[in-house]
């Protein structure tokens, strides 16, 4: 593994040590919360920009924002569970000691985030929305599986960070939700920096040995993974809880709408451009 990755890992470890916090002291979860407030930015709710959204009362829009926040936090829990499995598998593996040191912080911080997301969902919604993703074993070219693991981390975290930053800055959003988003973003800045340098390193190491078909397969996978990741933001379970009719049809309709496509493109712009800049993608595709 290259000098760049070790140097970045060392720098990030120092920052993690400096910013270390006790999750049980940092945020407090009141017994009850008022429902007539915003739990995420209205613009981040999946129905925003649709006729169905405009037809909702203010009270229904805020209820929607609550279940959208529960969905977002649930997605984070499922994503971070997979991430933790992958990260712990890589502890004390072939990576330099600086990388292993940083993986300890990465694991620690992701675990704290899950505690925040899970506590919010369980305490105020009484549930976590279930995961619908399944992964089936397949064969990989040399280095492809390792590369795709970090691609998934990268795509997932880059999208999440767009939501974290937007909600954390939004003064309309209730304080606890803003704080969860802010805390997550503060740690994710380091995870994103690590993810970017890892991706570049792994691509440079392995892609020259891949066949043209493998490289195209990797590019197709990245596009499909972006779309699958985004599709989970349009969860029919949210619409059931808000009391909206035909939840599955509604999810499909809003996902395909021009407003939703424009939102996804905006939120994914920086990550897609990065993947193109370092040669992983040869085009910025539409989402």
């Amino acid at each position, binding site marked *: 593994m290259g000098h760049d990755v070790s140097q970045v890992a060392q720098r990030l470890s120092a920052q993690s040590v400096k910013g270390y916090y006790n999750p049980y002291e940092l945020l407090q979860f009141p017994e009850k919360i008022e429902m007539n407030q915003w739990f995420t930015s209205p613009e981040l709710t999946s129905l925003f920009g649709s006729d169905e959204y405009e037809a909702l009362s203010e009270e229904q829009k805020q209820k929607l924002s609550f279940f959208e926040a529960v969905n977002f936090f649930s997605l984070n829990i499922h994503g971070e569970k997979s991430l933790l499995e992958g990260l712990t598998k890589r502890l004390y593996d072939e990576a330099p000691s600086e990388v292993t040191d940083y993986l300890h912080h990465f694991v620690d911080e992701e675990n704290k985030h899950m505690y925040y997301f899970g506590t919010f969902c369980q305490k105020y919604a009484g549930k976590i929305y*279930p*995961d*619908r*993703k*399944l*992964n*089936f074993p*397949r064969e990989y070219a040399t280095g492809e599986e390792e590369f795709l693991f970090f691609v998934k981390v990268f795509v997932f975290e880059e999208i999440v960070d767009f939501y974290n930053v937007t909600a954390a800055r939004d003064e309309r959003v209730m304080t606890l939700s803003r704080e969860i988003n802010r805390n997550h973003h503060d740690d994710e800045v380091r995870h994103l920096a690590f993810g970017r340098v890892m991706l570049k390193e792994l691509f440079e190491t392995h892609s020259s040995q891949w066949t043209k078909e493998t490289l195209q397969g990797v590019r197709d*996978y990245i596009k*499909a*993974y972006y779309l*699958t990741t985004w*599709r*989970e933001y349009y969860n*029919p379970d949210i619409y059931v809880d808000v009391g909206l009719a035909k939840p*599955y*049809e509604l*999810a499909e309709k809003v996902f395909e709408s021009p407003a939703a496509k424009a939102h996804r493109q905006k939120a994914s712009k920086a990550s897609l451009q990065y993947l193109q800049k370092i040669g992983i993608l040869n085009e910025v595709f539409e989402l």
Partner: protein
Amino acid sequence: MKTEQEIKENLKAWIVKKNPKIKSEDLTNETLLMESRIISSLHIMELILEIEKLRGSKFNIKNIKPGVFQSVNSIYQAFFVSAT
């Protein structure tokens, strides 16, 4: 509730929509979907949503056994005939 034929036709239409490389006339109820790479792991989440919509109810993915996504027939058997 849709008939068996309607459900299978819906599933095939969904598969063709998700993978334009396959023509509807080449897709039968027995076509091997995963093995032929017509659908991949990344399609499963959306396929589960489609199945839930057709069934009118959710199911626990932890109860899904390997091989249920092998073909349209096996999907029908697992999610519309057998208890899951």
